[in-house]
């Protein structure tokens, strides 16, 4: 029996031949924690008697969730991270650098075939370049800080084969929302999801990141795309690094293969208040919104900002609607600036905030009041996610967000085509 790419990676990292359902102890290639999770990890590290981390060059700390700090309590936690990074010689991305997941790739901390853990559920994002990456908790992160190793149950793999011709104005975000609606919020619990098929083969790394980012919304442990020529080009152009391709065996034991045809797919919307409550936009159009958030580790990249700017160029944001645009990283911000996108947003009446998580985790910046409605390009619309438990959150693509900014209502971007 052949192996899936995830089984191959975990075999390599654990030094033995493993299959789905085995429990393995794997060497970790990189570990990340941010201001929501690092403080607890640092405390657990100290309580365990930790003095020196296993390898400072493989640990990355990021201040992105509440950045800049909005309270004294948060500021103290940030100080704790800065002190730890200095003491241990660990790389820290401070306020304004960007979102942890974006920085893990931009900062060249992830390679195809690597095992990466992050104290954040969306660590699954790096499967976009063929890494096995998954979210863990803070105390486990402390264990990784100490030993550089961690246990995993080797996940069974579901293959999602995406075929058809993706219509104009329909994006990777719409694809993953559509899939989520079909599979459900725990439909891939504990599984790895391997994305493939012609639509994924044609997709760039940014779109693949959007797909892999949201697999945790189906309960999955990891999302992954076989690294191919697109992946190699990404590493060559961005970092001058040559990486090889890697594939699942033809006779790999997938638990299931699901096919999704995206021909004729409409833009999709996840409605309040679960990520799998997904509807085609024609059923949701017209809902009035108070705030629009364009950003997050799902959709705050250059490609996303470019798309939104296409629609917002020369247009005006509807009176009474707040449009918050948060580039995923400083590098994205700078490039957007160079291309004139930031000016397009400002002229349209949007507010452009510093790189980071922005309103997504609900701790600062754009916190929703009771009764308010937000359209967001992020990945979660749970009750209370972005502020009041009485606020409502809809999830959509950057194109839909931009079109809706102009009308103040959930609007089909194809109307602006």
């Amino acid at each position, binding site marked *: 029996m052949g192996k899936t790419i995830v089984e191959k990676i975990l075999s390599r990292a654990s030094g033995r031949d493993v299959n789905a359902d085995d429990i393995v102890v794997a060497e970790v290639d990189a570990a990340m924690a941010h201001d929501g999770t690092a403080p607890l990890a640092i405390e657990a590290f100290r309580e365990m008697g930790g003095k020196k981390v296993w390898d400072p060059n493989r640990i990355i700390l990021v201040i992105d969730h509440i950045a800049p700090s909005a309270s004294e309590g948060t500021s103290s936690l940030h100080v704790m991270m800065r002190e730890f990074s200095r003491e241990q010689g660990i790389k820290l991305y401070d306020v304004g650098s960007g979102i942890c997941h974006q920085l893990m790739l931009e900062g060249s901390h992830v390679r195809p075939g690597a095992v990466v853990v992050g104290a954040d559920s969306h660590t699954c994002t790096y499967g976009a370049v063929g890494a096995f990456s998954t*979210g863990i908790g803070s105390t486990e992160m402390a264990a990784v800080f100490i030993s550089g*190793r961690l246990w995993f149950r080797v996940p069974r793999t579901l293959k999602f084969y995406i075929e058809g011709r993706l219509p104009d104005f329909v994006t990777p975000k719409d694809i993953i929302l559509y899939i989520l609606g079909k599979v459900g919020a*725990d439909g891939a619990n504990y599984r790895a999801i391997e994305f493939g098929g012609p639509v994924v083969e044609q997709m760039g790394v940014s779109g693949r990141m959007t797909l892999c980012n949201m697999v945790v919304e189906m309960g999955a442990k990891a999302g992954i795309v076989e690294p191919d020529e697109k992946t190699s080009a990404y590493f060559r152009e961005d970092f001058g690094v040559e990486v090889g391709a890697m594939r699942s065996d033809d006779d790999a034991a997938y638990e299931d293969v699901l096919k999704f045809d995206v021909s004729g797919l409409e833009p999709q919307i996840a409605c309040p208040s679960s990520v799998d409550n997904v509807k085609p936009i024609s059923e949701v159009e017209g809902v009035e919104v108070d705030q629009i958030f364009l950003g997050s580790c799902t959709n705050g990249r250059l490609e996303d900002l470019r798309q939104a700017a296409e629609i917002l160029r020369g247009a005006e944001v509807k009176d009474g609607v707040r449009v918050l645009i948060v580039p995923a990283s400083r590098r994205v911000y700078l490039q957007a600036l160079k291309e004139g996108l930031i000016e397009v947003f400002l002229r349209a009446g949007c507010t452009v905030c510093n790189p980071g998580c922005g309103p997504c985790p609900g*701790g600062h910046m754009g916190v929703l009041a009771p009764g308010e409605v937000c359209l967001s390009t992020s990945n979660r619309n*749970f009750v209370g*996610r972005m502020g009041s438990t009485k606020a409502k959150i809809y999830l959509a693509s950057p194109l839909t967000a931009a079109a809706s900014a102009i009308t103040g209502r959930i609007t089909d971007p194809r109307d602006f085509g």
Partner: protein
Amino acid sequence: MIRVSGRAWKYGDDVSTDLIMPGKYKFKTIDPSELAKHAMEGIDPEFSKKVREGDIVVAGWNFGCGSSREQAPLALKHAGVGAIIAKSFARIFFRNSINVGLPIVESQNVFDETDEGDILEVDLDEGLVRNLSKNKSFAVKPLPGFLLRILQDGGLVEHFKKRGKFEWG
């Protein structure tokens, strides 16, 4: 040995970490007693006042879905929750609960046959849940041995302090 008993608090499916521990608190402090005051706030604002030492949360599918925040099981534990029984858990929540020393049990039957307020007893070593109010008992799926030992030691920090290594090597 892990045996807890207390009253059952029942919740439905897909209880997210945003409900168990809203983000606005987790970014401000890591003090467990402070976090405990807000446990379950998004779904049951009075929870931390009502819950008594040893009480048991009984929930549906996908308990603890959403973020990786360990503050969620930590807050429940410090609010007094003795164990969580759910039809299924989100995977990071599952790992986090064990690591903070909060016993968890996966069972569909217990959920179906428990009413809020029933007195339950969880015995992880035996792999048994008893509903004392209804005089029923349920065999439950045992945890892999090394996870049980982490729980028995009181969580991952205590485990490491006691043994000087991680059980998984």
